[in-house]
């Protein structure tokens, strides 16, 4: 994490070049707007973290292709120092610049824009390079209409090479032969200026600068001598040390091939002493890494003298900026206030005349399209005011204490407010700066202690997940761990595979309303991600829908990627944990048994919770096969927009593999009234275009549904098999996270059921062990089933024995009622009244467990109950026989 320290946030703005209106790409689709391209490329810059580089924090797209870029910023520039005339540190600064440049080059970024006014001074001794990402994010200048870099500092080859060109087919720039060595030239000029304590070619016009550059190129003299001659500083040069002179000549080499790279310059003898004093820089927090965390551990020294009461400055930059926005900060407003958003009435931009051919004349160039290099500082007062009442210790919460007391929120003067906030709707909580402040700090600390603090993360995630931490929290919930970097870097994501065509046509259609996901950068990442998954899972194939499934992970890890350099690997790591957990075997080439079983269990679940709806949908032939495949195959990622998926998955990830089924039932709940009044066509039309769903309500309903479903009722033979318990420190805190399939099997457990049987039955079956537990036949509850105990200790189930009265008398479960199937129903299909039926009707809120013999009587009886709109009906798997070994069967008292 890069701490805020004394940094300011600076916002600057520029226009991306707009495409002509009617231009289309080769696929007939409109060209990607340049602003979107910049937006995509920018994301990489947020991962750049180095002591001599300003961090890129955020980018936003505004109207008319205007981009707003937020960076770390300091007011003092090298140029202002130079002008003040008290400058002498060029030696160490120069090495810092070289070190920063060499880091950039190693990351594939060419600065191309280096000048004395974007070398900022953090302190007297430390410099920070700014604006180094402009050339990179604009695709080497191709996406903007202005040149990047000041001509005074431009390397000769830039002037020679002309503007970048774009390949219309691929929308990529044909990158000209301009390498990172242009920065070495700029460095040479800057160093010269620092030595001379004045600017070269200062007050002359642009054409004159270019003319002088051309003269320099054509001159017989070496560039340094030419400049000395031109500017009259030959005498001063003579006073310089041999090493310094050598360095200057070295940098100002005309031919790029002979000019040194930044890395080579670092080794120059002049820096021998400084080099030894430099400490290697460490990168920030990494979630999954094989490096020892304690390796570079430095305990902060709590010296009274350096005690800093500004605790906010100890927080990460991305975090403070996020809070700044929550506290009402708006980039556009800041720019407007500074007079940076100049708009011309459109009429002023009209051409003077046009001819029938469509050519336009006399169109003035909009000056606003040129680059304005002003950086406006974001005022932090508003944020600091909002946070001023927060106690110091809230910045450093002690995690251990929370085990003791139950309240999950840290205490602060306003803690009662916070507890109140915690009960407000999610959308409000996510906008509350103080609440998010506490949550973010808490999660940040927990994540640092991952995987040791995994139980706490589970616990907190049940309350909510702050959007800023979501990417890492999800990874933690999915139990991503190990050396993901090594595993995934070894996967071949480039070699063409047969699935490529399908992947390529699907990606440009997947969640394209999402600004980031529609950028070419995202498309490229998307393709690598899907290919990596396909290649590393040879047992599976690419089914359409896998793209939708990946999208949330990709979108999430795009943002705030800067937290850790390995997070570009998090999407694939998350996906590789998500699919086995929730979609086990769904991506097999022949997935029909898996999907069929899943849909059959879903149908049972609908009947179990809402027999009326189930009867209606069955009656009109509106079976889950017709509408629910995209729901489950993509875990709802295909049917909801991104912001809803994120909230839905926040809870889905806490649930087990059966939880998504409950979400499906919850969706039907919300649409219940409409579905009940609709016929087949209207129903299917309703789902062809998913109607508006209240996700927060849906999530709450699904939890309720889950908790009132016996665990074995959602048993699926194809669900994920138990993981090997490699260590016992896995948390067992989440009440709805455990999977039925993860429990040890015994004689009383559920067994695989043939798909034909599943489909013929309307109700779920439950296992004997579930029945025993729910009926509390063994006394103390084992808490194996998620079904919560009620306060009054009435049994949760009523057992209906459908065998003949004779058999019932010979051995029955205590408390069960007997309604023999043969005589149960009248010719009209109603239940014949008898005392047992009266009992049944009086206990309709309970789970009805139908128990029979080996035959089909029990399930037929249960089907009839569903037809009669009895809810929560299930059948005991393997009937009365299974109970014989348990000793639960007793002989009925005579004559009742």
């Amino acid at each position, binding site marked *: 994490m890069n701490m805020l320290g004394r940094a300011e946030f600076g916002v600057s703005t520029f226009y991306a070049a707009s495409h002509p209106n009617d231009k289309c790409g080769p696929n007939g689709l409109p060209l990607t707007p340049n602003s979107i391209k910049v937006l995509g490329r920018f994301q990489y810059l947020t991962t750049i973290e180095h002591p001599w580089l300003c961090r890129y924090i955020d980018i936003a797209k505004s109207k008319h292709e205007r981009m707003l870029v937020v960076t770390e910023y300091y007011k003092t520039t090298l140029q202002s120092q130079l002008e003040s005339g008290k400058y002498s540190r060029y030696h160490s600064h120069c090495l810092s610049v070289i070190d920063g440049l060499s880091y950039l080059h190693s990351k594939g970024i060419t600065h191309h824009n280096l000048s004395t006014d974007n070398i900022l001074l953090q302190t007297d001794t430390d410099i920070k390079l700014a604006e180094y990402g402009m050339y990179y994010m604009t695709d080497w200048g191709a996406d903007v209409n202005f040149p990047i870099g000041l001509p005074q500092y431009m390397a000769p080859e830039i002037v020679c090479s002309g503007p970048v060109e774009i390949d219309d087919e691929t929308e990529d720039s044909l990158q000209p032969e301009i390498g990172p060595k242009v920065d070495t030239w700029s460095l040479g000029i800057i160093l010269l200026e620092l030595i001379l304590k004045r600017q070269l070619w200062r007050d002359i016009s642009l054409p004159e600068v270019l003319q002088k550059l051309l003269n320099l190129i054509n001159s017989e003299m070496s560039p340094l001598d030419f400049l000395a001659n031109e500017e009259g500083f030959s005498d001063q040069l003579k006073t310089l040390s041999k090493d310094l002179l050598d360095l200057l000549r070295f940098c100002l080499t005309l031919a790029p091939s002979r000019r040194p790279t930044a890395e080579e310059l670092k080794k120059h003898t002049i820096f021998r002493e400084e080099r030894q004093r430099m400490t290697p820089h460490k990168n920030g927090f990494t979630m999954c890494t094989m490096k020892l965390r304690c390796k570079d551990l430095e305990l902060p020294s709590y010296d009274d003298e350096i005690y800093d009461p500004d605790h906010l400055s100890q927080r990460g930059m991305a975090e403070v900026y996020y809070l700044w926005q929550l506290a009402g900060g708006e980039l556009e407003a800041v720019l407007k206030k500074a007079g940076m958003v100049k708009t011309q009435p459109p009429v002023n931009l009209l051409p003077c005349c046009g001819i029938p051919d469509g050519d336009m004349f006399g169109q003035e160039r909009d000056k606003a399209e040129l680059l304005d290099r002003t950086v406006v500082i974001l005022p932090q007062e508003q944020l600091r005011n909002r946070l001023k009442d927060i106690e110091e210790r809230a910045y450093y919460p002690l995690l251990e204490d929370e085990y003791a007391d139950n309240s999950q929120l840290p205490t602060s003067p306003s803690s009662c407010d916070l507890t109140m906030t915690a009960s407000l709707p999610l959308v409000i909580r996510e906008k509350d700066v103080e609440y998010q402040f506490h949550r973010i700090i808490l999660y940040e600390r927990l994540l640092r202690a991952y995987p040791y603090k995994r139980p706490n993360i589970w616990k907190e995630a049940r309350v909510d997940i702050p959007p800023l931490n979501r990417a890492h929290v999800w990874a933690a919930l999915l139990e991503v761990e190990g050396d993901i970097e090594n595993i995934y870097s070894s996967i071949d994501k480039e070699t063409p595979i047969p699935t490529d065509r399908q992947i390529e046509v699907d990606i440009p259609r997947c969640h394209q309303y999402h600004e980031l996901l529609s950028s070419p950068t995202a498309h490229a990442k998307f393709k690598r991600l899907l290919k990596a998954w396909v290649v590393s899972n040879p047992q599976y194939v690419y089914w359409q829908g896998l793209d939708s499934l990946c999208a949330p992970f990709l979108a999430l890890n795009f943002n705030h990627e800067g937290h850790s350099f390995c997070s570009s690997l998090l999407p694939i790591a998350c996906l590789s944990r998500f699919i086995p957990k929730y979609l086990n075997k769904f991506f097999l080439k*022949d997935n029909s048994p898996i999907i069929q079983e899943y849909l059959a269990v879903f149908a049972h679940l609908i009947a179990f919770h809402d027999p009326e709806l189930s009867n209606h949908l069955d009656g009109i032939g509106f079976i889950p096969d017709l509408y629910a495949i995209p729901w489950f195959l993509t875990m709802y990622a295909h049917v909801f927009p991104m912001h809803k998926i994120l909230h839905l998955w926040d809870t889905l990830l806490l649930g087990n593999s059966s939880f998504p089924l409950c979400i499906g039932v919850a969706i039907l709940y919300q649409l219940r009234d409409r579905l009940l009044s609709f016929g087949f066509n209207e129903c299917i039309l309703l789902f062809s275009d998913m109607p508006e769903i209240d996700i927060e309500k849906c999530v709450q309903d699904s939890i309720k549904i889950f908790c009132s479903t016996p665990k074995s009722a959602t048993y699926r033979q194809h669900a994920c098999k138990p993981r090997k318990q490699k260590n016992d420190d896995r948390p067992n805190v989440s009440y709805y996270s455990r999977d039925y399939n993860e429990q040890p099997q015994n004689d009383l457990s559920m067994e695989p059921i043939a798909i034909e049987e599943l489909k013929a039955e309307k109700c779920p079956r439950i296992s004997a062990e579930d029945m025993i537990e729910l009926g509390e036949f063994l006394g103390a509850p084992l808490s194996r089933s998620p079904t919560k105990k009620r306060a009054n200790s009435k049994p949760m189930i009523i057992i209906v024995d459908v065998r003949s009265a004779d058999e019932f008398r010979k051995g029955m479960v205590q408390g069960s009622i007997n309604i023999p199937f043969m005589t149960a129903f009248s010719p009209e299909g109603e239940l014949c009244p008898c005392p047992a039926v009266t009992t049944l009707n009086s206990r309709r809120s309970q789970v009805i467990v139908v128990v029979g013999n080996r035959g089909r009587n029990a399930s037929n009886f249960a089907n009839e109950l569903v037809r009669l709109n009895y809810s929560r009906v299930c059948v005991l798997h393997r009937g009365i026989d299974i109970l014989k070994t348990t000793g639960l069967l007793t002989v009925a008292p005579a004559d009742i």
Partner: protein
Amino acid sequence: MAGRGGAQRPNGATQGKICQFKLVLLGESAVGKSSLVLRFVKGQFHEYQESTIGAAFLTQTVCLDDTTVKFEIWDTAGQERYHSLAPMYYRGAQAAIVVYDITSQDTFGRAKTWVKELQRQASPNIVIALAGNKADLANKRMVEYEEAQAYAEENSLLFMETSAKTAMNVNDIFLAIAKKLPKSDAGNANQQRQQGVRLNNEQTQPSESGCCK
């Protein structure tokens, strides 16, 4: 709105008979099946139409002389893997539009396979139309009009080049199908309704392999 131009919609006073037909769209993925339906039914076009998983269902009514024809349109997933789902949708269909992309020869080949399958396995009287979509990209054309037309004649298919983007021939192809469909025996809406249920019953029949079958 251009998309609605050609299709006459019922003006409330429906004196004539009402016919209901099940129509299925088949073809390689990303050839524009969903876009054709969306253009026909809602008059809209989305540049980045999401891929279809499983199938989607929409209805649209057109008027033909004194008959109101109601199309129940099943728009299927294009990916080869979803192939095994297709019979569920084309079974009992009275009409099918097999779509290919004129800028890709592969999709035309795939369209031919679909036609063969329909001729072999769908109801014998099914009306099949061949649509060469993305006609707006004529400069990228890889499938010649004549080639497709010759193939269509050989197999007695309706044929048009269409563009969901510009709405070219979209309503026309549906109208042409409506004209060709027999109106006498298929007029009973109730009988049509049974199709939905039957499709359900046939679910339970065993089938070789693939998704959801």
